[in-house]
């Protein structure tokens, strides 16, 4: 057991390391190599301390810290650590440590931007950590904004590209719209409870009018969901995450968006007091829609990193299903089920950090060596990058919830908690849950298809382009970091008891109810015997049976000779990559089935020889699918804003006296109001 002072020392030490990293970035901005090693190394060390802090917190240590001198107007800088915060610290550390290790080798390509990258990283990580630890409004907002700004600069690393700039701009707009929502919510609660401190809100919330609380919940949920990237607030995510360098994408997708979930959990379960069931239903619907649409868009995207970004939207949806279910259960006083659902959500967010980190890092090393993000130009990389390929495969299996990897366990838990919804005595809710189960199941199936496509097209068969043919394996820091995450995928899938133990403690402390789940090394049982699973045994027996099949063939005396020959293509003379199924072709059945969502536009142009139209010179095929959300929600908003902006232009006279007049008018109005 560590005492509070030791914890604070740890916190201070890690902050010092990050500060050192940031300073180092400024000092060594000319020496790219040293800068790279130093900033990332210090960030790595700092994050290791965060990890220790998180583990310490999860084993029952806590602290409270109030520094009234800093930010004096708003009640000082208030930090605190409970088990939920500690769990998110753990998540941050698990996502950040491999990413920074990866960055040591990976950022070699960014010579010019080294200082900025290092500096922003050393602000970004501690800001995330402090968001989780914040205990009053202003502290929270300051670090939230620091996190957003730092991540904005990280996204803007390759600012020479138009695509990056527009992505960064969109990210900035969305994140500040989200911030505005949070601000409104915080101010309203401040007004209602008269306190800056969020733990005090939780105590005072009972006294606040439930209508006000519901409104605050809606507004703040919108703010947090926009950070989490849930549909319909996701538009920035599939643009900003791919535009960033891959280790940053891994951190943003794996870690930062989880803080949106963190905020949602805090407001839903704690800060705003107990809420009605429809809060949870709303979150569940958002979750189900995010999961489905996220995976559907991931499925047709041919940009590898974009695909992963959309799949983050999907996984956030899955997490939100758990959170929403927890909210619903709690409003019906089913405490142990609420704990189970929340536990599933938290476990999935940890798992998502692990496998999405792994996938982004391995995608990063692919993009690094091939110089392209388009899967249609890749192929055959498994032979050229065997380790990266194997790691990507493990990540794909984990994210598709395949046993015995970690994604399966959390998805299984989510399913169990959703299936147990029949204990809610309200038919409408039951029906919503049934539909959510269906959408989660469809999501799981589509995710499997999506990652078969992602891995198969990228890593299998023949290379489709020049750059890919000369691809080579990534360097050792990159491979080590991926290896760590791959190992985590397997460990969390085979021995989930490690995570479940600390999680049930955290959830128990947070909700005051123990999850309806019993587990040990060999067995997990939800709601006594409603659903059981033995992940360790499944893995062991599966491995043994595969081995047994091989041994059995040997013992039987099967013919083990093998001969390599060309791929069967009905006897045609050559096999080239042109014969391969493309990513677009793979996704085509889905495009047709879900055409009402994709609203595809297809164009085929055929240029024929002049002699006969049957001799084709070139065929151009263009395919585009549009996002239904962007078309139906964002396009009208943007149009309206444009129109208003055009009207506002008339105010802008260009006359200095005019502007002074505005200032005077504003001053007078303010004075009159303040009266």
């Amino acid at each position, binding site marked *: 057991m560590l005492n509070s002072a030791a914890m604070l020392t740890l916190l201070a030490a890690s902050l010092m390391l990050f500060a050192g990293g940031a300073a180092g970035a400024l000092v060594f901005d000319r020496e790219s190599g040293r800068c790279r090693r130093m900033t990332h190394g210090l960030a790595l060390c700092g994050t290791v301390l965060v990890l220790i802090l998180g583990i310490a917190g999860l084993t029952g240590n806590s602290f409270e810290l109030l520094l009234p001198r800093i930010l004096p107007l708003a009640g000082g800088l208030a930090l605190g650590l409970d088990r939920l915060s500690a769990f998110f610290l753990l998540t941050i550390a698990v996502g950040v440590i491999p990413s920074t290790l990866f960055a040591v080798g990976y950022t070699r390509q960014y010579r010019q931007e080294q200082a900025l990258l290092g500096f922003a990283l050393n602000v970004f990580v501690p800001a995330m950590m402090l968001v989780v630890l914040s205990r009053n409004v202003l502290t929270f907002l300051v670090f939230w904004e620091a996190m957003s700004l730092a991540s904005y600069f990280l996204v803007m690393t390759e600012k020479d590209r138009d695509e990056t700039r527009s992505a960064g701009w969109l990210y900035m707009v969305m994140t500040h719209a989200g911030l505005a929502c949070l601000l409104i919510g915080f101010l309203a609660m401040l007004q209602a409870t008269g306190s800056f401190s969020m733990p005090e809100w939780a105590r005072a919330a009972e006294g606040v009018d439930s209508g006000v609380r519901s409104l605050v919940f809606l507004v703040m949920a919108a703010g947090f969901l926009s950070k989490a990237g849930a549909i319909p607030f996701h538009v920035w995510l599939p643009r900003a995450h791919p535009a960033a360098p891959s280790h940053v994408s891994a951190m943003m997708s794996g870690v930062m968006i989880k803080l949106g979930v963190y905020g949602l959990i805090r407001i839903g379960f704690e800060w705003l007091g107990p809420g009605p069931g429809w809060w949870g239903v709303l979150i569940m619907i958002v979750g189900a829609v995010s999961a489905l649409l996220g995976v559907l868009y991931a499925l047709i995207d041919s940009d590898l990193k974009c695909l992963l970004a959309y799949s983050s939207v999907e996984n956030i949806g899955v997490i939100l299903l758990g959170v929403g279910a927890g909210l619903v259960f709690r409003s019906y006083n089913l405490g142990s089920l609420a704990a189970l659902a929340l536990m599933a959500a938290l476990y999935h967010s940890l798992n998502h950090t692990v496998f999405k980190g792994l996938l982004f890092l391995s995608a990063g090393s692919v993009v690094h060596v091939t110089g392209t993000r388009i899967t249609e130009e890749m192929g055959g990389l498994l032979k050229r990058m065997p380790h990266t390929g194997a790691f990507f495969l493990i990540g794909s299996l984990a994210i598709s919830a395949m046993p015995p990897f970690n994604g399966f366990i959390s998805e299984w838990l989510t399913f169990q908690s959703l299936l147990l919804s029949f204990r809610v005595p309200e038919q409408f809710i039951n029906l919503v849950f049934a539909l959510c189960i269906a959408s989660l199941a469809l999501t799981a199936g589509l995710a499997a298809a999506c990652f078969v496509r992602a891995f198969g097209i990228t890593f299998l068969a023949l290379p489709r382009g020049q750059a890919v043919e000369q691809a080579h394996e990534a360097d050792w820091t990159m491979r080590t970091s991926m290896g760590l995450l791959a190992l985590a995928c397997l460990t969390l899938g085979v021995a989930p008891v490690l995570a479940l133990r600390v999680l049930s403690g955290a959830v128990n402390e947070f909700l005051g109810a123990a999850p309806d789940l019993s587990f040990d090394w060999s067995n997990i049982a939800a709601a006594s015997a409603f659903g059981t699973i033995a992940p360790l045994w499944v893995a062991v027996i599966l491995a043994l049976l595969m081995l047994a099949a091989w041994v059995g063939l040997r013992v039987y005396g099967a013919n083990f000779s093998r*001969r390599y*020959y*060309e791929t*069967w293509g*009905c*006897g*045609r*003379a050559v096999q080239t990559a042109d014969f391969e199924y493309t990513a677009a072709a793979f996704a085509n059945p889905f495009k047709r089935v879900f055409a009402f969502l994709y609203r595809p536009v297809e164009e085929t142009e055929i240029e024929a020889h002049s002699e006969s139209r049957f001799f084709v010179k070139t065929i151009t095929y263009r395919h585009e699918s549009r996002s239904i959300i962007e078309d139906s929600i964002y396009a009208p908003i943007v149009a309206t804003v444009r129109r208003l902006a055009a009207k506002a232009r008339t105010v802008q006279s260009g006359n200095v006296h005019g502007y002074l007049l505005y200032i005077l008018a504003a001053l007078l109005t303010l004075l009159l109001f303040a009266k």
Partner: protein
Amino acid sequence: MKLLLRKILKTPVVTESGISTVDADIETLGNALTKEVRKLFGRSLNIREVDPGSCNGCELEIGGLNSPYYDLERFGLHFVASPRHADCLLVTGPVTRNMADPLKRTYDATPDPKIVVAVGDCAKDCGIFAGGYGVVGPVSSVIPVDVVVSGCPPHPRAILAGILMALREFRGP
């Protein structure tokens, strides 16, 4: 569906009983198979049909093999879609220039042990196409052939007998 089921119930099994090989003109050529393997093949043989230039007369007769009347499945024979799955190549027609290479590739794509049955006069000696400018030669000039079934086109019974002939001596009379 009702009609179909009624019809099914009314129709007896029409498969003819034995296979008489008396009227068939069959030669055995190569014989590379071991005794054990041929014994195995006697129980299960997957056939891939290759047409390197036939007039499709033989194909019609081969199609007849799948009919309820000849029903080659009862002998454990089965047509498959990929040479990878096949044990036997059933080759018809003379080998044309453009198809010589694919035929060779198909042969190579078939895992060992395997047998090749050349069906029809054209496959045997190019038949009436012999000497044509587009014809490379009989099947045996491109890939090794185990059994040749003559006829233009051969009777389905003869084709069946030819395939069985390759396996015959180990199936008993």
